[in-house]
């Protein structure tokens, strides 16, 4: 087990390194660099651009730039934002809260809804109802979140024109106003997760309900509710967790677009903005953070897997 963990940990390091190299290459291949974008569509002389490039270190070779970056990164210094001169860690820290809040709200809302919904779906007897539910759940997974967001915004404006639904108020400043503004983005982001999770719960539940130990439990005279929640649900836990891990990645990608639609100052908008501004250190750090988080979450899920299923230890 320790060996499995160590080897997965090594892979994680390699992936982080690979992602940083790839990100670095990619952003430096994009035409138009930070110096040009910063000076705007005005008349900046070639000398001025060259000077700024030098100041930003953009006139060094790619290898030298990367070496410089990784040396700093290993000491915990991810560089400073090209535009504001603040450490990128600070810039990211100021934004990551919004994304985390959005992700956590969506995930909790999804779990809270998906668990009972999945159980309910598992107990449906009529096949018509079951098909309807399945089509709905697939539709829920495939609905484009940016479309849903725009439609929700339009609907809200039509139904309750005075509702405060856009912008961002920090939770610490006014919790109610914060949650009120997070409502629509949460719905837009959570729906596909609800659908995915509910399907997983339903499938595992159905499987479990046909198994011997559930029959035994029923035979012992336990109530149906007890059977479902105490026995069958436990069986659903592992696939459920796996899906949650996959969804963590989805949620992050989805929040890029949803933050844009609802004007939330989160990490997704930071990244899209950073790409447009060619703010290299910021892009670099933000993508690294996002991928490492994604890999870590899945690493944890793997560990749970290994802990729960001895057979998985061998592979």
């Amino acid at each position, binding site marked *: 087990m320790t060996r499995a963990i160590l080897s997965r940990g090594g892979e994680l390091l390699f992936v982080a390194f*690979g*992602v940083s190299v790839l990100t670095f290459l990619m952003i430096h291949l994009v035409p138009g660099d930070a110096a040009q974008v910063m000076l705007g569509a005005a008349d900046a002389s070639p000398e001025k651009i060259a000077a700024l490039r030098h100041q930003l270190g953009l006139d060094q070779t790619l290898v030298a730039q990367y070496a410089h970056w990784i040396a700093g990164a290993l000491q915990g210094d991810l560089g400073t934002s090209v535009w504001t001169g603040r450490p990128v860690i600070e810039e990211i820290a100021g934004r990551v809260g919004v994304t985390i809040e959005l992700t956590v709200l969506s995930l909790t809302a999804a779990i809270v809804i998906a668990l009972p919904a999945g159980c309910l779906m598992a107990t449906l007897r009529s096949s018509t109802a079951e*098909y309807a539910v*399945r*089509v709905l759940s697939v539709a829920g997974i495939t609905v484009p979140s940016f479309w849903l967001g*725009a439609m929700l915004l339009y609907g809200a404006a039509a139904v309750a024109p005075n509702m405060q639904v856009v912008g961002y108020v920090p939770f610490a400043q006014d919790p109610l106003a914060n949650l009120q503004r997070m409502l629509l983005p949460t719905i837009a982001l959570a729906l596909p997760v609800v659908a995915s999770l509910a399907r997983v719960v339903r*499938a595992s539940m159905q499987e479990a309900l046909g198994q011997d130990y559930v029959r035994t439990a029923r035979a012992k005279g336990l109530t149906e509710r007890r059977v479902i929640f105490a026995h069958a649900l436990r069986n659903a836990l592992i696939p459920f967790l796996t899906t949650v891990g996959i969804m963590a990645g989805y949620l992050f990608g989805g929040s890029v677009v949803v933050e844009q639609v609802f004007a939330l100052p989160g990490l997704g908008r930071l990244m899209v903005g950073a790409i447009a501004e060619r703010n290299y250190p910021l892009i670099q750090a933000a993508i690294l953070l996002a*991928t490492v988080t994604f890999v870590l979450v899945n690493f944890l899920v793997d560990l749970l897997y290994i802990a729960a299923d001895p057979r998985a230890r061998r592979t």
Partner: protein
Amino acid sequence: MNRANPLLWLGAALVVVQALAALASPWIAPYDPNVQDILARLQGPGAAHWLGTDNFGRDTLSRALFGYRTLFTISAASVLGALAVGGTLGVLAAWRGGWMDKVAMRLMDVLFAFPIILLAIGIIAVLGPGAFSTAIAIGVVYTPIFARMLRAPTLLLKDSEYVAAARAIGASDRRILGRHLLPNLSPVILVQASLSLSTAILVEASLSFLGLGTQPPTASLGRMLAESRNFLNFSPWPAVFSGAAILLAALGFNLFGDGLQDRLDPRLRSRR
């Protein structure tokens, strides 16, 4: 056990109808999708324009039909490309084993760990926006999925007694892989390709929505949605229909893949 069939058929029907519509769009579209008619702009559904018109007075139905064409072409090209490249890589890595396997799969891990949209945005930023770049970007995103999917069964096959026996009678690697691995895996590949198409459609739409996909005036459903957003308060119809079209396209492939999976192995249902 034919429980999954109605959904499978529903999915297949959706895919076939939409694909046919996309193919036939030049003949069945009631209008030229790029012709502007300012006087008739932002109309709701009606007799002249079944699905209404956009802010330039272009016919939404015609644009949606041509939009399907763009959407299907790009999604299919990228998934097929990813299958070809990723699949070959996965099979070769497993078959050869050793350092080649390690390097290839770690590379795939790196690609896989990237947030999909950001990887695609990055690739398009490098290549410049357009249909071709979009297809490449989505293809790269899906390559690791197919590499992983084909690697595991190849490993199993490689260690099997069957291969040892085949080798003993002098069968070539190519013959073993072509005759036995691929036929056995084709249903799984079909399922994964179908499900990948479903998400590739969503990625293409997101990229067009962000203005990175096909260039105007080529009809693209994601761009239609993005452009109509500014006119939601006038006429929600172009936004409603273009979004619904994206949803239906993705839904068709997802139901089809899902149903197929059920049919192949009911026990594996929803365990993706």
